[in-house]
């Protein structure tokens, strides 16, 4: 019998007769205990520094109950003009920003794919993506509102800018993992660069591009609902006003509308993605 086998047998005989125990998620004992203890210490520290005014929370529960009740009785009618205008503005911003954002992110995605673009272009496009991803929509919106003034233009620019970082990054990853053979076959037939992209690369990444675009439209709509908080147009301004005036029934109506649109978009994206794949 060889040495490892003996080791196995001794290990086995040591375990025999003992009940089986579930193996731990983190194998190394010292690491597991460090993680657990560190986590517990953090929780205590965090709990001690957060001030919770329980009496205020208790008082607020009544209002919370009113708000939950408002969901059963939403008021679409009283502010229907404002709600309609806000929703339309949100949808318009979403559509325009998605179109522009997708149109800009396609060339940037090509530039950010190492197998398509030369190194200098690659670095420039990757840094554009990094900047766009690092800044949150709401902060960009604050700056753009300060620069371009109140209104949907600032929201439109914010969403376009945010779309670039999201879409270009994921599309570039897809281009980088494409099948080289097909692209090379097109090139071997004597195709120009543009034909190579159009017939060799594009058909391979098209399903992913469509799927990502629809997902991004969904995200853009959800984001457009908050841009109004900082004055960048859309339904957010109406929502904020209705919260400030404690008109919970109107707020509930707006939230229900947002949820419905998002659900419809998700359903639509499911159908379209199933069709292109």
């Amino acid at each position, binding site marked *: 019998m060889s040495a490892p086998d003996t080791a196995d047998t001794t290990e086995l005989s040591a375990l025999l007769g003992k009940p089986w125990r*579930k193996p731990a*998620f983190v194998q190394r004992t010292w690491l597991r205990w460090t993680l657990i203890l560190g986590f517990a210490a*953090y929780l205590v520290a*965090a709990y001690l*520094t*957060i*001030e*919770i*005014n329980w009496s*205020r*929370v208790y008082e*607020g*529960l009544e*209002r*919370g109950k009113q*708000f939950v009740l408002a969901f059963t009785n939403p008021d679409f009618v009283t502010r229907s003009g404002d709600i309609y205008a806000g929703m*339309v*503005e949100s949808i*318009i*911003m979403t*559509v*325009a920003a998605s*179109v522009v954002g997708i149109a800009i992110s396609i060339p940037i995605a090509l530039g950010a794919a190492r197998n398509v673009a030369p190194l200098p272009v690659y670095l420039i496009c990757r840094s554009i993506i990094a900047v766009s991803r*690092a*800044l*949150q929509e*709401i*902060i960009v919106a*604050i*700056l753009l509102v*300060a*620069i*371009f*003034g109140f*209104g*949907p*233009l600032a929201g*439109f620019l914010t969403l376009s800018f945010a779309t670039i970082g999201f879409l270009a990054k994921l599309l570039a990853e897809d281009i980088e993992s494409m099948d080289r053979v097909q692209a090379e076959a097109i090139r071997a037939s004597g195709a120009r660069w543009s034909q190579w992209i159009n017939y060799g690369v594009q058909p391979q990444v098209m399903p992913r591009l469509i799927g990502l675009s629809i997902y991004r439209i969904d995200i853009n709509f*959800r*984001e457009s*609902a*908050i841009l109004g*908080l*900082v004055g960048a*147009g859309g339904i*957010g301004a109406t*929502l*904020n006003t209705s*919260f400030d005036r*404690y008109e919970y029934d109107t*707020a509930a109506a707006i*939230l229900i509308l*947002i*949820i419905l649109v*998002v*659900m419809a978009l*998700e359903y639509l994206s499911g159908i379209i993605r199933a069709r292109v794949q």
Partner: protein
Amino acid sequence: MPVQDRNGQKIWQRRSGRESLMHWIMWLIGVAIFAYCWHQISQATTWFFVWDAPRIANDIWTRATPPKWEYITQLGKPIWDTLNIATLGTIIALFLAVPVAFLAARNTTPSALFIRPIALLIIVATRSINSLIWALLLIAIIGPGVFAGVIAIAIRSIGFCAKLLYEAIEEIDETQVEAITATGASRWQVMAYGIVPQIMPAFAGIAVFRWDINIRESTVLGLVGAGGIGLQLSSSLNVLAWPQVSLILLVILAAVVISEWVSAKVRGAII
């Protein structure tokens, strides 16, 4: 294959005549919709401000640089609050997301007809409303402060975590579950020994991923009064203290980059 016959020479085309017509009509409709949207946006815009924008941008830039570095001493507590909002929010969300995910997954739900739609509704409703709106709502209910931020982040994250988790549960290997069931295990034992070990890596990955997103989101929650560094940002913006604003933006940027780095490292170690 669509082939066009021109003077006896056959030319390959990508689409047949009918297909390309449809294609063009779709593009036309798309362009028309976009043109309409753009027209609406441009109607609602004061173009004078837009033409003036480069000057304003330049003005803000000169005011905002250099950042007021000594202000950083006052940012320690807000950053700690932001970290707490993100971390505690993620923990609470995970506790709530696990049962929702088990109720929503097709293979573990007790009733596909009644309970699954309710679980899916919870997922969609919490996911489609941004954490800023949840914060706005909770501030009206339980008052401004870090606690409202924690709860807002928690509610917003339930849908996200539960969705990814229930997809992971639906993709598990059924043979392992069957093996545990064959030993005579009860429903809870099947869950603990057949399902949980299989989704544990996915669960850890989701937790870290969501924590990273929550750090981003909690940096701006203060804009509506829910604590964290956003509170400093909004008060600095209100008094037009641009050097402070630029410093806060740099700190937020650093926090986002660090959290993304941490999450990438941890996910790399798990998977």
